[in-house]
C-alpha cells in the first residue's frame, strides 16, 4: 500500500483518483480503506494488484462512485452493492453481484459460477464466458429490473429459479454449445434473451420460447448500446436481431407438484 499523499485513507491520491496497492492485503483491510475513502468524499478508486480479496465493494452506496480493479478479485465482488460502478479488467471468480441492489459491475474477462445471485437491481456486464447458475434466484423489486448480459457462453442452470429481471446471452464467439443443461429450470419470472438459438433439449419444462418483438428490442437496445460502449464493440452487431425470448410458462411452476393438475 502506498502511504504517500493521503495517509488517512492509506492510499495515494492521483488526480481525483485514489490508488490502492492491494498486494497481499487482506480483504478486511482493503474494504475498510474503500469504505473510509468513500465516506471522506473520494469518488474514483483504482485497486492495483488485487488477487483473491473477497467482498470488494460490500454494501457500498453512491451512484457517482467508481472502483476499477486490476487483478482477479475474490468471491462476492459487489455483494449488497447499492449504486456504485465496479470495472474489472481481468476475470472474476464466483458469486459476484450477490444480492446487489443498484449499480453496475463490468467484467472485461470471464466470470465464475453463481453470478447475480438474488440480484434485485443494477447491471452486470460480462465480456467473456460465465460459469454455472448465472442469475440464480434473480428477482425484480418494485420498479427495479436487474440486468445481466453475458458476451460468451454459460454453463448449466442458467436462470435457475429466476423470479424477475432480465438476462441476455449474446454468444458472440458463435460456438455451437453456448449453454449447458437445465436452462431456466425452476424459472417463474423475468425474461432471458438469446442472440443465438440453442438446442431445444436444453430448455427446462418450465419455460416457453418466443421471438423477441419490437417492444422487447426497444427495451434491450439501451442496455446493448451501453454494453457495446463499455467493451468497445460495434453496436450494430449487438443490436441486430432476431433475438429470442425465453419466459416462464407459469408464475408458479410447482403449484401442482403435490396435488393433481385438476385442482
Amino acid at each position, binding site marked *: 500500500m502506498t502511504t504517500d499523499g493521503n495517509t488517512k485513507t492509506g492510499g495515494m491520491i492521483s488526480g481525483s483518483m485514489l490508488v490502492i496497492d492491494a498486494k497481499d492485503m487482506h*480483504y478486511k483491510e482493503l474494504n475498510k480503506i474503500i469504505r473510509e475513502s468513500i465516506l471522506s468524499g473520494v469518488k474514483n478508486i483504482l485497486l492495483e494488484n488485487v*488477487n*483473491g480479496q*473477497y467482498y470488494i465493494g460490500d454494501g457500498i452506496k453512491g451512484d457517482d462512485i467508481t472502483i476499477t480493479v486490476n*487483478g*482477479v*478479485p*475474490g*468471491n462476492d465482488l459487489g455483494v449488497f452493492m447499492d449504486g456504485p460502478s465496479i470495472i474489472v*479488467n*481481468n*476475470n472474476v*471468480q*464466483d458469486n459476484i453481484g450477490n444480492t446487489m441492489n443498484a449499480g453496475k459491475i463490468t467484467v*472485461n*474477462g*470471464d466470470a*465464475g*459460477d453463481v453470478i447475480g445471485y438474488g440480484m434485485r437491481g443494477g447491471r452486470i456486464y460480462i*465480456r*467473456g*464466458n460465465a*460459469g*454455472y447458475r448465472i442469475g440464480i434466484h434473480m428477482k425484480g423489486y418494485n420498479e427495479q429490473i436487474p440486468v445481466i448480459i453475458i458476451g*460468451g*457462453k454459460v*454453463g*448449466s*442452470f442458467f436462470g435457475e429459479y429466476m423470479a424477475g429481471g432480465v438476462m441476455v446471452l449474446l454468444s458472440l464467439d458463435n460456438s455451437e454449445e453456448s449453454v*449447458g443443461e437445465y436452462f431456466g429450470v425452476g424459472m417463474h419470472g423475468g425474461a432471458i434473451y438469446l442472440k443465438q438459438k440453442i438446442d431445444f433439449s436444453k430448455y427446462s419444462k418450465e419455460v416457453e420460447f418466443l421471438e423477441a418483438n419490437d417492444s422487447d428490442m426497444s427495451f434491450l437496445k439501451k442496455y446493448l448500446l451501453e454494453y457495446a460502449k463499455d467493451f468497445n464493440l460495434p453496436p450494430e452487431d449487438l443490436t441486430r436481431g432476431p433475438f429470442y425470448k425465453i419466459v416462464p410458462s407459469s408464475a408458479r411452476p410447482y403449484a401442482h407438484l403435490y396435488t393433481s393438475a385438476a385442482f
Partner: protein
Amino acid sequence: MLRLKNNFSIEHDIAGCGLCGIINIKKIRTNGEDIKKAIALEHDRGNGLGGGFAVYGCYPEYSELYAFHVMYDDLAAKEATEEYFKNNFIIEKQESIPIFKTSKINDHPILHRYFMKPKSDREDRLFSELKDDDFVVKSVMLINSDYDGAYVFSSGKNMGAFKGVGYPEDIADFYMLDNVEGYMWTAHNRFPTNTPGWWGGAHPFTLLDWSIVHNGEISSYGINKRYLEMFKYNLALKTDTEVIAYILDLLIRKHGLPVEMAMNVLAAPFYQTIDKMEPEQKELYTALRQIYGSALLNGPFAIIFGYPDGMVALNDRIKLRPLVAGTKGDFTYIASEESSIREICSSPDVVWSPKAGEPIIIRTVKTNAKTAINTENISQKQRLIIS
C-alpha cells in the same frame, strides 16, 4: 490431551474447504514453497482445524520401498506398531519426520516414517498369498482400526502425505516443506463443520500411491462404506473423504479400470445423458452404472486425485463446488479459486473451469517429450485469457 483414535460419535464429516494442486508433467521437481503460497491465498476457506499436503517424487532414494508416515499418541502405541512392522516388514530405514516447532502448531503427535517392504516369509504367507500392495493395504487397515493411538497417514512409494491440525501454511512450515521436493503437489485447507478437527482427519487421505483432497460432502458415504467393506476396506476414520481413496484403489488397482473410467464411476453420467450416447458408449456407461452403482459419489464435491502418473480434478455432476485449472508450460495448476493459481503463476497460458462431472486428467510425459500440455484438446476450455 491429544488423541489420535477417532472415537468421536459421528457418522461422517461435512466440510467446506480449499484445494490446490501443482503438477510438472516432465516430473521436474520443485519444493513446497509454491503450493504453500497457493493454498495460503485460500486461508479464509478453512478455519485452522486441518491442513495438509501430498507430494510425489519426494523419496527418489527409496523409490522401491513403501514409505510409511505414521502418527502416534504415545510411545506405547509406537512400540506396539513397530512390533508389527518388525514382524512383517524389512525396514531399510526409519526416522522421525523432520519438523520445525512453531508457535502455530504446538500440540502434535509423534510423527515417524519408515521405508520398508513386506517380508517374503511373513506370517500371513502360511495361509494367504497376498501381493505386496495388498499386504500393505491390509496392514494400513489393521493399524488404523486396531492399534490404539496409531495412524498410518501415507503408505506409497516415492510419495508422502504431510498433514495435521492447523492452517495449511503453518503445517507447511511445521514440516519444513521448503526442504521437500516433488513433481506433483496437492494441498488442502480444511473447514470441518460437523466434527472436531483431529490430526488423522486432515486431508489428504492416501492409500498406497493414491491421494485425495476433497472439498464438499459425500452424502453417499453410508452406501459407499458398506460397499467397500465387502472388499475388506476398513473405514476407520469416519471422514467421508476416506471412501474416495479406497474406491479408487478398488477400481484402478484391483479391478484394473483406466483412471478416466474410474472417474466416470465416481461421477457417473445421468441416465438422460447416457440415453443420448452412441450405442457402444451407451452400453459401456450403462454397464458401469449397473456394476458400480454403490461406488457412485453423491453430494457436492470437488476433488484432486494424485497418482504417480498424473493428477485428476473432478467435480460432482451438477458442479456444486468450485474448481479452476490453469497451465503454464509444463506446469498445470488446479485450485478452488483462480486467484490461488495467479498467486504463483501470474500469467497462465490457459485458465479454464472443468465441466460438472468431467474429469481433467493431466498425465506426466517422458522427460524428453517435445510437447507440453496440449491445450487444444481441453474440451472444457471456457475462459478467455487476460494476462
